[in-house]
């Protein structure tokens, strides 16, 4: 059977199934099995693409090339590990009385549907469907964020819904404008929103319209990426949702939104004067980086802090893609991968830590390394990795971004330096006492799932020291496609 169809069908079907049986004791296992199936299908699809090159599906509506297949496999992988992590995590939440059975059902089904929407958004060739999938992803995650039904979580979900809804409406306006521009070249046939067609004629697209369109798309999807000053929903949603949701929001959803921007940037680059789109992205990237770094120093809630850290990294990645060129694009893609893996690992560790200490306030979390050395080390190493310490892979991409910026955008260096320094001081200064020191915490009935944490960190460590050649080729090809 077609790997692609399998990959989309498994989460859709299992999502529907879990709506019915999601409260059973074995439902978490089903969740894991479904995610595993999705992952295996994604691996199969990847192998197929690597072997045979890009392909279409459902006519020309879906298109898988080396750029998105990389995101697909990453998404499926993090989806799998998060589902593993969420098993014991959600059991603990249930035992603590924070979640009822219907909510568990809702969680699992929405989780699978969320995976489906993201995979659909990544693989679609139609920019309209991309928009639809993104909106659907928002809707599913709104329900996930408000899962606890506490005032705070409702408030967070409401803000998330409204801000992202408005943002995505702007993206729709951008899409309409893009269609408008494309229609003039490709005609009113249904393929005027198909990326593969658009990219062939990108040089002929009307610059005036494309500029407007890109602005709308950037602001729209940028809201979802968390670019400052459009980021305000992000820390609230991350902090108030269940931790597995924070992990996938940070690790995956932001990537998917950025992916959407990248696809649009390729078109805008073709139509617009040299570097216009890039400069917009550089501006947003730097501003985001700086703002997020300063936000970090004032955080009290651990998940909120790492949410800001995600914003910061999204800023850095946007900056990298804004610079463009093979090295910076490569670095951007690498950084996205590393950030996904590391940040989700951090959220896993944070999830267990907050459960053990029964608080998200950092000043009340102390001595994790005594409560559970693995969680403590996981959080410590994850934090160091996300802060760009070698030998972890985040450093590899930061290395390329910084050296490249030094060469081509030296004026940005002070900003980068300031932001990275402030971020380091803020995050590390807060995590260190959480991990070290003495503690007063208790044991939990369900043993935490530590494997995902160290699996991710192990991967990040490996990629910092050694990137397998096929991965390199793949990255290079993707970077080349981005121009």
């Amino acid at each position, binding site marked *: 059977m077609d790997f692609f169809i399998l990959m989309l069908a498994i989460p859709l079907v299992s999502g529907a199934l879990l709506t019915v049986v999601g409260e059973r004791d074995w439902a978490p296992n089903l969740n894991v099995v479904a995610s595993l199936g999705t992952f295996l299908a994604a691996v199969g699809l990847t192998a197929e693409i690597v072997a045979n090159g890009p392909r279409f599906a459902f006519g020309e509506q879906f298109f898988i090339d080396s750029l998105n297949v990389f995101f697909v496999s990453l998404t499926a992988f993090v989806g799998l590990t998060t589902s593993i992590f969420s098993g014991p995590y959600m059991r603990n939440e249930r035992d603590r009385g924070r979640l009822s059975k219907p909510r568990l059902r809702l969680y699992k089904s929405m989780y699978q549907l969320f995976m489906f929407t993201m995979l659909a958004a990544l693989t679609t060739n139609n920019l309209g469907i991309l928009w639809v999938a993104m909106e659907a992803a928002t809707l599913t995650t709104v329900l996930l964020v408000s899962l606890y039904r506490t005032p705070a979580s409702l408030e967070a979900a*409401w*803000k998330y819904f*409204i801000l992202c809804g*408005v943002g995505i409406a*702007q993206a729709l306006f951008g899409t309409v404008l893009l269609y408008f521009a494309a229609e003039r070249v490709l005609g009113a046939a249904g393929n005027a929103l198909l990326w593969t067609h658009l990219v062939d004629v990108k040089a002929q697209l009307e*610059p005036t319209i494309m*500029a*407007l369109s890109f602005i709308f798309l*950037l*602001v729209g999807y940028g809201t979802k990426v968390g670019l*400052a*000053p*459009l980021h*305000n*929903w992000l*820390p609230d949603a991350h902090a108030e949702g269940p931790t597995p949701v924070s992990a996938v929001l940070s690790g995956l959803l932001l990537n998917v939104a950025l992916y959407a921007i990248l696809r649009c940037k390729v078109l805008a680059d073709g139509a*617009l004067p040299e570097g*216009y789109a890039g400069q*917009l992205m550089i501006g947003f990237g730097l501003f985001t980086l700086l*703002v997020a770094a*300063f*936000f970090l*120093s*004032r955080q009290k809630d651990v998940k909120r802090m790492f949410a800001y850290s995600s914003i910061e990294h999204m800023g850095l990645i946007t900056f990298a893609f804004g610079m463009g*060129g093979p*090295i910076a694009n490569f670095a951007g893609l690498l950084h996205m991968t590393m950030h996904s893996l590391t940040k989700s690992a951090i959220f896993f560790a944070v999830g267990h830590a907050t459960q053990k200490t029964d608080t998200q306030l950092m000043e009340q979390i102390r001595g994790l*390394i005594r409560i559970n050395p693995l969680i403590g080390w996981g959080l410590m190493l994850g934090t160091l990795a996300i*802060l*760009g*310490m*070698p*030998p972890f892979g985040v*450093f*590899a991409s930061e*290395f*390329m971004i*910084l*050296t*490249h*910026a*030094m060469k081509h955008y030296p004026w940005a*260096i002070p900003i980068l*330096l300031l932001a*990275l*320094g*402030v971020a*380091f*001081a803020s995050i590390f*200064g807060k995590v*260190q*006492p959480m991990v*070290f020191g003495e503690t007063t915490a208790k044991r939990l009935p369900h043993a935490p799932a530590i494997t995902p944490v160290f699996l991710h960190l192990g991967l990040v460590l490996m990629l*910092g*020291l*050694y*990137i397998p050649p096929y*991965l*390199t080729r793949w*990255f*290079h090809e993707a970077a080349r496609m981005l121009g």
Partner: protein
Amino acid sequence: MSGLLTLDLLILAACAWLVTGLLGVFAGRATGFIAGLLFPLGAVIGIGVGLLGLNALGAPTQTAVLAIGLPDLPFHLRLDNLSAVFTLLLGFAGAGISIYAAGYFAKGDTPGLGPLCFEYHVFLGSMLMVLLADDAYAFMVAWECMALSSFFLVTTDHKHEEIRRAGFLYLLIAHIGAIAILLSFGVMTGGEGDYNFAAMRTVELTPTWTSAAFLLALAGFGAKAGLVPLHVWLPEAHPAAPSPVSAMMSGVMLKTAIYGLLRVSFDLLHTTIWWWGVVALVIGLLTAIFGVLYSTVQSDMKRLLAYSSIENIGLIAVAIGLTLIFHAYGMDALAALALTAVLYHCLAHAGFKSLLFLCTGSVLHATHERSLGKLGGLIHPMPWVAWLALAGIIAGAGLPPLSGFVSEWLLLQGFLFSPGLPHPWLNMVVPVAAALVVLVAALAGFAMVKFYGIIFLGQMREPALKDAHDAGPWERAGLVWLALITVLLGVLPSTVILRLDAATQQLLGAGLANTLQQQGWWMLAPISAERASYEPLIVLVSIAVTLLASRWLVRSLFHGRVRRSSPWDCGYHFEGPRAQDTAEGFSQPIRRIFEPMFRMQRHFPAARDKQPYYSVKVEDHFWYWCYLPIARLANWISAMIVALQGGRIAVYLMYSFITLLLLLLVARP
């Protein structure tokens, strides 16, 4: 070496260290196994590394490419003479410290020995990789691994808040420094992302960019080495770490920063501009003066040594500055002299500072006390440590015939020739700097006397000190090893410099070997015997001979009778140990003379105090001048920026709206 190159063996050694560390992790709580087997194993590897470094000096450059690293940029490794010098240093100093550590950690009072063993050996391995790295990425990875592993070592005893804070400060400054280094590499990058050093050597840069690269490197490596004003982590981190770790950091790790600075300034950047030298010289002098003054007023023995390390790094930076100035004016023979001083002082400092830190470790183990005010008279229960520490302080004070003097002497010789510089005011001002260098050296003597006199001499300030015990056999072996290095470096400078010559030849194309070879091996005369010479062996032997002869003569001509009695003390009734100078009292002249240099909070007892006490707290001006304003500024900015997240959804929507409008109206192409 037939089949395997020296470089391959060194890579194997790094791996061996890593494996040793991993064994430590798996050994977990088996203290005996870790301390009794793994650390000695690490020491053996260290000796191997040292010998390989020695072997590589003067040998042709070797290169290797590993299969790991970034795509298109596998790890490039290279062993040339400069790395060989520092490899030698790492191997031999590391071996001594490891031997000592075997005894130090055997007592089992260190929490988490397994991870510690891992971090320790990763630390060693990553330092080796720093020295061997031949591309920016490999260098940075090794560099940050070094920072990270040493950070974990510093925070070994993380129960204490101040230790955590020290570790945090250390890692923060190390990280910022690393970014600066990275940017320096970014400037030097050739073409489109050619990060290996071979490419950087060939890149032609404009003077502005070259200077930017140099200044970034100076800042980055300076942060690691502890140059003012980036030194603040050092006096916090070194005391916090277990003593073998402090020794390793002070003795070896700081030198990797010097290595990096030399690598960038003389190897990667192939042009030199004279004012770089002035910058390095001035910063070095400031660092040295600052370090030594603060070192004299410390009350914590490890902080005292930490500040003394700052001082020594300052002196090394002065020598680097001098080298740069000479090199920029093409006076390469003199540049070689100054560079020899740099390398020699690195070696010497590695030996004696490790030795002294390890001695504090033994004192700490024996007394559980770091504060000088609660020590004293330890020469009686701990004669081994005390006598070996004496070698350390003589070298540390820069006195003949031990190692510290040789490099100072070379440095001053370098200064003596600076009036020959073809620059109108440089040739006048630079010699005056020499006077400050001497002031620093003399003050270092003050600090060392304070350190030694208060810890080991006098009466015991606390009764519990009677129960102190001397260092165990492993510890003794480590101390003896380092003391031996200190003595050998002190008395055989010519032999050592002939070895180092390969490195100066490589960097400057000039060296001291030609002149030295014409003279005896016991004599050090860098230019010619008429101009300046120094024969430490003669000094040592003649003092020793006089000592023995006079003792023998006095005893044979007169007698050797000894009686014991209470001290005379000018006829006063003999007071207890509290009549001695405290650590604070001893440094009172310094505080008084250099008052503006210190930020002091003093409390004087009033006449009617029921319980009068005197206290003085000396703090670093730089905290108040540099760091706190920055912290406050950052705090203020973040307070401003945090207002963005005010909680009102309408305001959030407005941001989005305004962004959109701005982009639509202003930012259209």
